[in-house]
């Protein structure tokens, strides 16, 4: 199964991920950055496994991120 890795510290809070994929992303009201819902955090980097049927859209979200901080592995 593929994983999303989100380097959250570098997020500029433009909101494109949340707009394209609201089931996985929400905008934090606390610091204005995108939050990967239910992801596990390690040293400021967030990870979560994604089911295959969400993969295509998530790849597009990763491509859409203007600061390139969403990786799919």
């Amino acid at each position: 199964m593929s994983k999303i890795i989100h380097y959250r510290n570098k997020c500029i809070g433009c909101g494109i991920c949340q707009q394209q994929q609201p089931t996985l992303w929400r905008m934090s009201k606390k610091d204005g950055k995108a939050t990967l819902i239910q992801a596990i955090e390690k040293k400021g980097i967030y990870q979560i496994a994604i089911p295959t049927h969400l993969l295509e859209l998530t790849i597009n979200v990763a491509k859409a991120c203007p600061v390139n901080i969403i990786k799919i592995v």
Partner: protein
Amino acid sequence: MANKTIELLSPAGSFDCIQAAINAGADAIYFGVEQLNMRTRSSNGFSLADIEEVSTLCHSNGIKAYLTLNTVMYDHDMQLLKAILQQVKLHHIDAVIAADFAVMEYCSQLQIPLHISTQANISNIAAVQFFARMADVVVLARELTLRQITQITRDIERRNILGVSGKPLEVEIFVHGALCMAISGKCYLSLHTQNAAANRGACVQNCRRSYIVTDAETNEQLVIDNEYIMSPKDLCTIGVLDQVVNSGVQVLKIEGRSKGADYVYTVTKCYKEALEAIANGTYNAASIAQWETMLATVYNRGFWEGYYLGQEMGEWTKSPGSAATEKKVYIGKGSRYYPNIQVGEFDIEAGTLQPGDTIMVSGQAHGMFKETLHQLTVNGNHAIIAEKGDKLTFPITTKVAVTDKLYKITKA
């Protein structure tokens, strides 16, 4: 206009740059924190926790500190915005530079002095009058001519337009640095090509690249005399600074929060000297030529006077990167400092140094320190070369830290 009232405002993307601005004689600096400023791609951005240190550093050196909060703001930014403004209030940052009405509203509630950003594109006296209700300084659009600017400053005086604090409203303009191919803040080029939100500070600068124009119908390439059809040269007003001062503005701003301490120091120093020369009547062609030579040593895309003299079209750069006459090559980093003898030690990590080479140290304590090393002391002995693995020592009056970077300055 008496020159002493002119404030020189320098950009600061790091503590090194703040120190460089102080050393070069800036009257104030502007900086951004977190993601709510127009230089979010800059690697050395400040965080919320840095506001106190920036304030202390600036105020203990007798200069002002302004915080830029001039991106497009969304609902999800409001809490961070309020948290930033609370820190601004708590640590007595001198003003906030804003373009969004939410920022203006919160500044008003918290009674934080406000400057209206160039992102608001103020281009006429009615807009100036509108913003005077909430601000003390307005930064005019970078696309105005000096004649238009003069008209605005005269009208402010004639109509006795006061800022929110009750003092006469001040006008700020950009005097040096990069220009945008669009009206500031109105460009969506990055968004169309790479989905990068330029108005959230993530501009990828695709206007700076070379382009080929093809007729889509015939597939023929059109002949154009310059491939960099969208990349304007950098603004430089050092040669017309007397006219700029005579336009009646009070604050002169230097662009460049993404640039290094060497840029901040050199540009600030040149403009400071030029302002002093105008004040004491020694501003002349010979000194302008000297400043232009100095300014060309740091990052630039070639210079023109922007739209201030009223050219019909922009002047476009002819190269992809900097046209600086000097470049800095990374050599190593600071390792220790001997305060009694005022000698700094640096670890050489790349390249080589020889006697006669000019080096530059960039660091928080020095801002920018530049010197020619006529003799080399390597691993405690005189040497004719310093290379990777060596420890280089030389006299330096400010404390060397491990975060300091050592560069060799070479001709570009």
